[in-house]
């Protein structure tokens, strides 16, 4: 048997085809560690290199149980490898709008938004979360992209200051019991709605909490000073509803939720419209067209994109992984799967990929070429699991 474990690590790349993951083992000195490294090892985590960090891919419970536990109760994720950035200046929202198609200026204090850094050709440099923290913007960037993103922001936005918060950890608490658990430490979070953001003191530390996540569940992401991270994580794990969850389940959870993984589902070769992320383009901004790649992106919006990201359900039980060719029934290759695997909550194989717009309607039959055979599959609406964010 060939133990060619791709793990979740295959996804840790910023540019298409450029693997950020090295062959190195997690004990290599070259790998960075998060403030929770000792905690992961004490919990028996299997550590893997991911975007230059030693990260827990799974704990002893395993990917399947961790996934199901998150949907049933609450999972705690260490996402400290992600970039945390403050954007300060006279008009940080106005400045950031020069690099993203999202409506950042209308974002009210205490609210957060998902947006995209776009390129002049309409491709996507990264996806990110941006919160209006009152005096500044707080942004969370993909780990594999953060250095490039920060250079990009600094090069193009000389009128604002980009401050990378290297002394903070980022924890995600996700699942139906997340709010009750976190409210036990900070009652104020119970009042937050999906995509609310606010400064909250937790266990005596100045944290920045957003009610958001990457699982399709209700939950929070908590930016906490590095020196307080382990105490906070242990306090959350002390709750009987909470189990630690690794990158493996994080990937299957976000795939079921239909959420894009940068470097796999979106990259510099996909436009926001092709990626079915046109909803992130601000209404007024469609009129003004003042963002990188606007000409190409607005053309896709007006005329329809040549291809679209869709959900795919293979028939039977065989998973179709990223890179699998998508064919028209009995015909030629028309696209490629960008994320695929087994959905523990769906209890079957699920995938996302790009197909020509003519084949993007839910219900359309396609074939997936798995190990030289055509596996019948259908285009389906995303997400695969019902969204359960707390919209208030």
């Amino acid at each position, binding site marked *: *048997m*060939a*133990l*060619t*474990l*791709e*793990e*979740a690590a295959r996804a840790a790349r910023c540019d298409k085809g450029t693997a950020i993951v090295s062959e190195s083992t997690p004990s290599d000195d070259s790998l960075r560690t998060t403030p929770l490294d000792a905690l992961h090892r004490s919990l028996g985590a299997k550590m893997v290199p991911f975007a230059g960090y030693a990260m827990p*891919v*799974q704990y002893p419970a*395993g*990917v*399947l*149980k961790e*996934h199901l536990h998150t949907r049933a109760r609450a999972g705690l994720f260490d996402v400290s490898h992600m970039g945390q950035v403050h954007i300060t200046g006279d008009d940080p929202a106005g400045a950031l709008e020069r690099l993203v198609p999202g409506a950042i200026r209308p974002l009210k204090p205490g609210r957060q938004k998902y947006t995209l850094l776009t390129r002049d050709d309409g491709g996507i440099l990264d996806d990110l979360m941006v919160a209006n923290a009152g005096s500044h913007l707080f942004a969370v960037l993909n780990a594999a992209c953060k250095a490039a993103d920060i250079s990009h922001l600094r090069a193009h936005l000389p009128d604002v200051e980009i401050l990378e918060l290297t002394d903070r950890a980022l924890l995600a608490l996700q699942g139906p019991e997340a709010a009750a658990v976190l409210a036990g430490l900070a009652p104020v979070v119970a009042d937050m709605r999906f995509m609310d953001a606010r400064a909250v003191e937790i266990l005596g530390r100045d944290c920045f909490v957003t009610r958001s996540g990457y699982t399709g569940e209700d939950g929070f992401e908590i930016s906490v000073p590095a020196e307080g991270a382990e105490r906070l994580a242990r306090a959350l794990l002390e709750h009987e509803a909470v189990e630690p969850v690794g990158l*493996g389940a994080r990937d*299957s959870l976000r795939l079921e939720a239909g959420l894009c993984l940068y470097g796999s589902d979106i990259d510099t070769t996909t436009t926001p419209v092709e990626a079915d992320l046109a909803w992130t383009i601000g209404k007024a901004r469609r009129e003004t067209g003042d963002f990188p790649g606007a000409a190409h992106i607005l053309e896709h919006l007006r005329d329809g994109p040549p291809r679209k990201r869709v959900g795919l359900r293979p028939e039977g*039980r*065989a*998973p179709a*992984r990223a890179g699998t060719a998508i064919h028209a029934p009995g015909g030629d290759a028309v696209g490629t799967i960008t994320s695929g*695997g*087994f959905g*523990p909550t769906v209890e079957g*194989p699920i995938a996302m990929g790009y197909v020509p717009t003519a084949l993007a309607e839910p219900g359309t039959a396609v074939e997936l070429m798995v*190990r030289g055979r055509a596996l019948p599959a259908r285009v389906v609406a995303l997400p695969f699991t019902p969204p359960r964010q707390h919209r208030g």
Partner: protein
Amino acid sequence: MSTLYFTEDHEWVAVDGNTATVGVTDYAQKQLGDVVFVEVPEAGKVLAKGDEAAVIESVKAASEVYAPVTGTVTEGNTDLAETPATVNDSPMDDGWFFRMSLDDASELDDLMDEAAYAAFVASLD
């Protein structure tokens, strides 16, 4: 009474007379994690040593199971299609993949016995 052999690809081969039963080891199932899909060969399939014989997929990855010896498949464990997790629960027993005839018993000389395999696994960690 069968004799147990192991391959460097983490497969076990139980040889009883002219028949070899093939599966993956406990080490393999632990490395793979939760198995969610298994495809076994049908009876009559002729396999040369090293041919891809079966497919095993976990939540994390897809892997192939190779024919450890040359011969013809006599039976596939079709139960695994419905309950792939049996590979995790009982890798050395109920989680067997397929049985095959043994064309050339001398091919077994290239395989490891239990002690050699244990030492091989220990060398990997």
